[in-house]
């Protein structure tokens, strides 16, 4: 499977993402600089990594969301290519408008950096097929602005449509309805604050994140 990791100035989980993708797919991803305007031919998965693009200036992900590469990502997403945004990547996806809502400063104002328990809300998606519905998994978070916010109608809609992929098992950052990961309407774009790429082997303390990538490989195809 040909994958691409988008690299912004200030991305710092791009290499972790590349290691996770290579470990699961067996092939190195293309590292695509934000100033490019095209993705490599045959890209079957796009990953937007964590980090602090543009130093979180203006709003987290706001400036990265106006990069030259973004129209190519939007076009690929509309054509059905899976797009995974983790942490800052999730913030970028909401700023682009590919996902609803916004990520605000954590309720307690603290930077939260620790393993957290998540429950898998939707185990049917392209990203979550290797999990069981309601399963509890452990994945690390590391963020200051992960407080998911949307109006009540939007929250009702995404819940009603099964678009909450993951929830925090307990409150971590004040997110509305403890939402940790959200899918778009077609189910091919996922944004999540926790870092599955930091939990792919025993040396990481567990491999609950690995199954997300394995599920992608299975559903998207080699």
């Amino acid at each position, binding site marked *: 499977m040909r994958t691409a990791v988008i690299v912004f100035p200030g991305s710092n989980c791009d290499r972790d993402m590349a290691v996770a993708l290579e470990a699961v797919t067996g092939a190195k991803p293309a590292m695509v600089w934000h100033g490019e305007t095209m993705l490599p031919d045959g890209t079957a998965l796009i990953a937007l990594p964590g980090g602090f693009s543009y130093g979180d200036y203006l709003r987290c992900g706001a400036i990265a969301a106006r990069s030259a590469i973004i129209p190519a990502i939007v076009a690929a997403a509309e054509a059905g290519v899976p797009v995974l945004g983790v942490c800052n990547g999730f913030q970028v996806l909401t700023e682009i408008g590919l996902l609803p809502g916004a990520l605000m400063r954590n309720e307690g104002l603290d930077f939260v950096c620790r393993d957290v328990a998540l429950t898998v809300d939707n185990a049917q998606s392209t990203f979550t097929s290797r999990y069981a519905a309601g399963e509890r998994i452990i994945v690390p978070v590391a963020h200051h602005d992960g407080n998911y*916010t949307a109006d009540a109608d939007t929250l009702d809609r995404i819940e009603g449509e099964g678009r909450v992929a993951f929830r925090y098992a307990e409150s971590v950052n004040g997110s509305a309805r403890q939402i940790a990961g959200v899918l778009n309407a077609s189910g091919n774009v996922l944004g999540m604050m926790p870092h599955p790429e930091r939990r792919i082997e025993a040396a990481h303390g567990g491999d609950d994140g690995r199954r997300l990538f394995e599920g992608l490989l299975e559903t998207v195809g080699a």
Partner: protein
Amino acid sequence: MKLRIVVTLKPGVLDPQGRAIHKALGGLGFGGVNDVRAGKLFELDVADDTSDAAIDEMCRKLLANTVIENYRVERG
């Protein structure tokens, strides 16, 4: 032409920073502060013939996230 663009959180959107500032004001002994909301101010110097539509687009496309924020433009 000088512009001041004021971006504020929409009513109803929780503002953890505003709440912390509110608490700190209380800690300094200032009573009677009912609420604090934090926002942003941008000072722009733009060409005199910049259209209102273009200014509005700058706000909607970048300066404000209209999912959670409102904006207003002050001139002069």
